[in-house]
Each structure stands twice: as structure tokens, then as C-alpha cells.
């Protein structure tokens, strides 16, 4: 539910950006092309590629060729966007099941996790647009989306230094959600400051009393985001 909202919004953004890029690419006579900063084109290509990667990984059985080509293209774009920043070394093998050859499930989990770790590395570079939320779910253990958002003001405390892909993700995730739902004293004493880290309980504002229905809803939300980590059901 949450991710659908996010996804819809992102797709609109992507479309607009892609159309803009299209106009540049398709009309060589356009004066803007000569002056178009390469960074702008690279950036929207990057976003487009990330979106494609996201879609690809969401398939129950991704087209491996498509996936590999998109990832390689993403690497090229990233290399051109930040040539000074060396690509961080490939992280140690992700916490995936043992590499039993014949189980596509484990291979896919490993591939997904590896793509996620690739994107985590990419997130260290400044100015990157946020990656879609479900990918972030498959990062190293502990980085779950279980924590509901603190108030937006509190997020300022979470600096980019945490290097967490979820920093931006959290903010974007809850942009179009009424966060007053999560502002209640049940979760954290109002007097305490927020600890950095997304898995911590949110909310330090005064809140109206939470009734049963709201609590159920909140639990559904928390459980629902966990469910996103599980592989999707049948279908392509």
C-alpha cells in the first residue's frame, strides 16, 4: 500500500523526466541540446535505469539478460556522474542462503541482495535521487522498514553520515501519508531525542489517544512493510 503510493508518484516523475530527455535527444536542432548540461541527462538516465532495475527485480523471475544489461549501464552512468569517486569495493557476500546451484530462489535472493548492496554503494555519492523503497528492504539484516517515521522535524537529526539509503527513503516514503497517526506517546517518551537509525520506534510529539482501530492499522502497516521483503506471489 505504501509502496504503491510511492511507486505511482515516482513513475510520474520518471515519465516527465524521460520525456524531457526525449525532447533533447530527438530534436538535434534544439538549441538546448548544445547547452544541455551532461549531468542533467546522466541524472535522468540514472533514474530511469534505477526504475528499470526496480521493475526487473520485482518480477518473480527476472529476465537475467535485461537485468545484467541495465545494471552494467547503470554502472557506466554512475562512473560518468562521479568520476572522482572510486567505486567502493564489492561488499562481502550478502546474507543470502548458501549458494545451492539448482535453487533459483537462492540465486535470486543473492542477486537481489547484491543489486541492493550495489545501490547502497551508489547511495554514498551525493545528489543521488532516492532508490525505490522495496530494494532497500533487502539490504543487510536490521535495515528493515519496520520503524514508522518520526516527525519530519526529527529527521533532520539523521544526517547523511549514516550512509543509510533509507534516510531519503523514509522521507519520501511518508511524504503523502498522514504522519499524525504515528505521533503518539506510546512509542517513545516525548522528552527523549530520537536515536539515529530507522528501526527505532518513532514519534516524540504529543499525540491523541490511540484507539484499537488505529493500533490495528499501525500494526498492519508495520507487518505489511516486512511482508515486502518476502518474494512476490506468482505471476510475472
Amino acid at each position: 500500500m505504501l509502496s504503491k503510493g510511492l511507486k505511482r508518484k515516482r513513475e510520474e516523475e520518471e515519465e516527465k523526466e524521460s520525456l524531457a530527455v526525449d525532447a533533447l535527444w530527438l530534436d538535434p536542432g534544439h538549441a538546448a541540446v548544445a547547452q544541455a548540461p551532461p549531468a542533467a541527462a546522466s541524472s535522468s538516465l540514472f533514474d530511469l535505469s534505477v526504475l528499470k532495475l526496480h521493475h526487473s527485480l520485482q518480477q518473480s523471475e527476472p529476465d537475467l539478460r535485461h537485468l545484467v544489461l541495465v545494471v552494467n549501464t547503470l554502472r557506466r552512468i554512475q562512473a560518468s556522474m562521479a568520476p572522482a569517486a572510486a567505486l567502493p569495493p564489492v561488499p562481502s557476500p550478502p546474507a543470502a542462503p548458501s549458494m545451492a546451484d539448482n535453487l533459483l530462489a537462492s540465486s535470486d535472493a543473492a542477486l537481489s541482495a547484491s543489486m541492493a548492496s550495489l545501490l547502497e554503494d551508489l547511495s554514498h555519492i551525493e545528489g543521488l535521487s532516492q532508490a525505490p523503497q522495496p530494494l532497500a528492504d533487502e539490504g543487510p539484516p536490521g535495515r528493515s522498514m519496520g520503524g514508522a517515521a518520526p516527525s519530519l522535524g526529527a529527521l533532520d537529526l539523521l544526517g547523511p553520515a549514516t550512509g543509510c539509503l533509507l534516510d531519503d527513503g523514509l522521507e519520501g516514503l511518508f511524504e503523502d501519508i498522514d504522519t499524525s497517526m504515528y505521533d503518539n506517546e506510546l512509542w517513545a517518551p516525548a522528552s527523549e531525542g530520537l536515536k539515529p537509525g530507522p528501526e527505532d520506534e518513532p514519534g516524540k510529539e504529543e499525540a491523541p489517544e490511540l484507539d484499537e482501530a488505529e493500533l490495528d492499522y499501525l500494526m498492519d502497516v508495520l507487518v505489511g512493510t516486512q511482508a515486502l521483503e518476502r518474494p512476490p506471489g506468482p505471476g510475472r
Partner: protein
Amino acid sequence: MNYPDENTYGNKADIISTVEFNHTGELLATGDKGGRVVIFQREQESKNQIHRRGEYNVYSTFQSHEPEFDYLKSLEIEEKINKIRWLPQQNAAYFLLSTNDKTVKLWKVSERDKRPEGYNLKDEEGRLRDPATITTLRVPVLRPMDLMVEATPRRVFANAHTYHINSISVNSDYETYMSADDLRINLWNFEITNQSFNIVDIKPANMEELTEVITAAEFHPHHCNTFVYSSSKGTIRLCDMRASALCDRHTKFFEEPEDPSNRSFFSEIISSISDVKFSHSGRYIMTRDYLTVKVWDLNMENRPIETYQVHDYLRSKLCSLYENDCIFDKFECVWNGSDSVIMTGSYNNFFRMFDRNTKRDVTLEASRENSKPRAILKPRKVCVGGKRRKDEISVDSLDFSKKILHTAWHPSENIIAVAATNNLYIFQDKVN
């Protein structure tokens, strides 16, 4: 060229996904997205009907693959036929291999024009007779009946591919064949369905390191120990099965150095090879990537001997083609019987032919509007910029949903089959 022969379908399941002539050209098989195989047979020539020489009519239709559900991995396996390959004919029956993403099947197609009559224990409708009523015995005799063509699955080769099968190729020994998926190639014996031999495995120990996949594979037409496979990075590897059991180390490695002036973010994607085919002679291989067809001499690994531009006007459109995923389309390519002409498809229902000797090329269109029976195909031209002539079509008017991915060429005559989405066109040389 004349006489388009079409079968028109309306829905998605009828999208043709593979086309293949058999070794004599008498039969033409198509596979579609719905898992069906349709076989056409060429009519025998007759003196009475000169103008209908060599028409292809439907010979047999059968459901080769059904959609399956893999409960372990919770995913659906498409029934779409990815490839059909014929076996050479050895008796009255015809044999072909058809494959979807996971399972290869050997089908026997045979004719029945006689049936036994005069059974003792059952009557003409097949109902059992009461033995007590039988007083005499007779010998059943074979009597003629209307021709019936039946297709039966003789072998099912399953559970050997974790990834999606993209190619099958029958070996020249006629005893074995190979099937290739994104990361592995397996060798099968036709008689043995519960085992296959893995001959190529490019799966990295860490899937993180995966940067390249297998895109197509084919056996050499004469040397049963030799095969080639192509990759998503635009390389071709030739392997010799005598060298070692696991052909991870290639005998030859074909790669053209990248042209620095054409470098872009999309260089790798457009270099990805979508099809590889040996020439009939076995001396050359042809590869198709997004914008070109290349011919390679087996003795020269560092560059192709010929490069043909299929639709270079798309080079400036790569960004939007990436956005709408067209850049990932996989076009096939084919040789004619004498290896002098090569053919491949493009967009807007265009297909291209290149004469290797004269260096001339032509663009033709497969569409009902432009082709009436016995009409001659008119060459088409795409206008790149500037003033558009009367018959030309501009790049921006091209219909990218009308793609010709699959074509086939008769083994010895100038007859071609062109699949345009869910229509099949058959063109042949006009005879005076």
C-alpha cells in the same frame, strides 16, 4: 517476390515466436506465444496448377507446451515456444524439437492414411463385442482412410535449466543436441531424458559478479564436436568438446574492438548479440546485434569480415528506445541456401536483405496493405533527414510495435517466411 500467404489471428497468444523450415524445405513450422506449433506443407507441383506452384498449406497443428506453475519457486512458466528445430528426416515420420523457457520436447509428426478394419473383439465403432456372439474369426485388413496427420510427444527433456532457455541446436551426429539458457549449456542424447551433460557454465560463484549472459548457441553444421555461443557483451566463443568435458575455456574468442567515436551509455546494450548462425558451408558465422549484422570468418577472431547496417538511423534514438525497452528487442538473422544473401528483420514490419557479393541491400515490408497475392514487393526506404521523397517514410513515423524478429529462408530455393507479430508471410521468387 510474390504471393503472401497469411494466417490472421487477433489475440496475444497467437504472436508468432519462432519460424523454421525443415531440411528439405517441404515443411515450415511456426511456434507461438500460446504454446502452439503450426506446420505448413508445400503442395506438390502439378502441371494443371502452375500458378499455384509450391503453396504452403496447414499440415498439422498441435499444442506443444502448456503453461506450468512451479510451486517450489512460486512462479509461472510461460508456454511460449522460444525455438523449433527440425531433425533430418530418416523415415516416413518427421521429428522436431520445440522448447519453452524450461522444457524441450521431441515431437513426432506422422501421417496415417490407412486404418485397420475387421476386428474380432470390437465392432466398427469400437464397442466391445460379447465374445459369446463370435462364431468366426477373420483377419483385420488395412483400408484407406482420409489422411490424418498426428503429432505425438516422444520425449520430454525437463528439469535441466534453472534459467530461461534461449537456444536449441541439433548436432550433425543426429544423436545429440544442446540447449542453452542464460548461464549454462547442456548436451542431451535424444534417447535419454533423465540426464543431460553440462558443457558450459558461466555462472559466477558470487552472483554479484554476474556481468554477462549467454544469448544464443549453435552447433557447427558438419563438425559434431564444435559449437559457438554468443554473449550479452557482443562476444562469440567457439568451443571444441574434444578439448575438455566442461567447455569453459574456449578454443576461439571473437570480439570486435569498440569504436571510440560511437561510444555511449548504450554501447554495451547495442552490442549484445541476439542471434548467431553458422553459414551452410560452416566457414562463417553471422551475428545480429541491435543495429548491425556481422559476418565473421572462423579463422579471424579480432574483427568481422563484413558488417551490414540494418537501421543505423536508430543510433540517434537510443535513449528513447532504451526508455521504451525496444533496445532490448532480440532480432534473428538467416542465411540463404548458398550463403550469398543474409536477411534480418527491423521495425515497421520492415525486413532487410543484404547480398554479400554485390553489396546491394534492400528493405521490404510485410504488410497486407502492401501485398496482394502475386503482387511484387516494392522496396522501401527510410528517410533520415531533410526532404522526404514521395514513397519514403520518415524515422519518426516508424511503428516500433511492428517488429519482425523471426524470419526463415528455404534451404535451397528463394522462398522466405516472415513473421510479423501474429501474421505469417511467405514470399517466393516469381517464376515466368
